[in-house]
């Protein structure tokens, strides 16, 4: 069995709101899971189930209330202190977000966005090497580098923007990618080609992936393992076949029922 690269232990995130009468919202409630090398797992759940919070904690953008995230045995909040270690972490664990429209600063060109990722690299490179690496990464996701490098995000379509985001992943080749609903704002016709990019990432670089989605159908397409989250807890875990054939938790059953029955109604 390949080795575990990410471990999530007893992770809890509580949001407190209100000044005098405090109200607690438990976004993530004591979850445990791990990711092995080259494995794609899916976190499936409705909005508000804590998927995105989990993603943000793993990306070290949000501090958990309690619990640990271990990457290669290192606790990402306790053992990573200085900028160098932080860069090392983000070099190895990086993400793609849900909304390709707000994922770009409107004042930046694609060239700048891509060049910025070289912050994470330890090795010194000259400008030409960087640009040729960027071009290669853009080609890899099916974009024509010469056409888009000097454009700004608002001159590109949603699908192209999402591809640029994925190209950043191809550029830095992390060990683990956290993809937070990368296809939810993309046309249905483009979804499959984007998902294939993630599979290509795994096949070429053995990148592990945490794929976050609300769509059980998409999850079964890519993942090796599916975790179903409901109200901050992981309520079910298993391979796609297990989840599809023998759902045990009532929420999973409901999820399965809610996959559109378009074809069965119209064609049978």
């Amino acid at each position, binding site marked *: 069995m390949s080795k575990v690269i990410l471990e999530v232990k007893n992770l809890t995130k509580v949001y407190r709101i209100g000044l005098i009468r405090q109200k607690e919202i438990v976004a993530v409630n004591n979850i445990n899971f791990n990711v092995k090398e080259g494995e794609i797992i899916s976190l499936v759940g409705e909005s508000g189930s804590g998927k995105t919070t989990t993603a*943000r904690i793993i*990306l070290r*953008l949000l501090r958990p209330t309690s619990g640990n995230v271990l990457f290669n045995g290192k606790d990402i909040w306790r053992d990573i202190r200085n*900028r160098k270690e*932080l*860069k090392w972490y*983000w070099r190895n664990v*990086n*993400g793609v*977000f*849900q*909304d390709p429209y*707000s*994922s*770009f*600063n*409107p*004042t*930046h*060109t694609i060239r*700048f*966005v891509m060049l*910025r*990722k070289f*912050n*994470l690299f330890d090795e010194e490179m000259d400008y030409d090497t960087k640009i040729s690496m960027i071009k290669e990464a853009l080609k890899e996701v099916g974009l024509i580098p010469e056409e888009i490098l000097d454009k700004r995000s608002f001159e590109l379509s949603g699908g192209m923007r999402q591809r640029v*985001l994925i190209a*950043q992943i191809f550029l830095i080749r992390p060990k683990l990618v956290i993809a937070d609903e990368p296809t939810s704002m993309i046309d249905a016709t483009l979804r499959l080609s984007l998902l294939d990019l993630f599979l290509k990432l795994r096949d070429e670089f053995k990148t592990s992936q945490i794929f976050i989605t609300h769509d059980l159908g998409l999850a079964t397409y890519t993942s090796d393992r599916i975790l179903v989250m409901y109200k901050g807890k992981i309520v079910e875990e298993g391979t796609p076949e297990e989840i599809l054939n023998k759902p045990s938790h009532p929420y999973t059953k409901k999820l399965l029922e809610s996959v559109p029955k378009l074809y069965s109604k119209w064609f049978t």
Partner: protein
Amino acid sequence: MISSISSTIIRLFRIKKFAIGLLILLVVLFIGIVGPAIYEVSPTRTIGRRYVPPGEKYPLGTDALGRDVLAQFLHGIRGSLYVGAIASAISLSLAIFLGTIAAVFGGLVDKIVMTLSEILLLIPSILLMMLLAAYLPERSLWIVAVVIGITSWAGWCRGFRSRTLSILSSEFINLAILSGASRLNIIIRDIVPIIAPYVLAAFAMLFSYSIMAEVGLTLVGVGMTKDVTLGLMLYVAQIYANISQGIWWTIVPPSITVTLIFLSLYMIATSIDELFSYR
């Protein structure tokens, strides 16, 4: 980059309000810069009888102390523009710096900056300026400008802070962090370019505010003691009760000019704001 900037400028000039405002400002600027060089009469020396009406010898007459009003007027425009530029530059840089730092760093930094700005906003700034100015033994144009600058950043600082906070909630800030960008880098490369149009509008507003504040300070008697500004002209006219005596030539030109500067900058500021808040 260049094409988008030039198209923005073209759109800006299509707004009539902006074009008129800019024209007025340029005329006033031109008078302030070139005027004193062409009309070489000292604004502070007594050169004739007091209250000579406008005529051939003195184009705008003389004031209560027998000084040439036209020379005072030209130098006054220059002085007022100086005060406006220096004071607004100081308060604007303080506002941008403190506002973005407060939003990005949060926590204690945010609390300190916000408390400071609350104090400044709660105490009427003219009172603060009066206290500061009265405490200083000698008040040159520069010192008055600095006093105005450091007492008027609070409101815009809060504005920039909230604008920055709303930018910070965008996804691209998270992506910048994931690219290993430092907080300072995020302020310079992500936040400042987006708030740049607001900076222009803020500059125009602060500029006119500073000129008015200087006039106000001088009118209550704690302004300039050395240099000539439009405020000083009005102050002298007011203490010698020129208004009730019907000596119009010492009052009308500076008041009209102050109003015009204020109006033109206001027009520029609002049209810039209109242009960028459309989207």
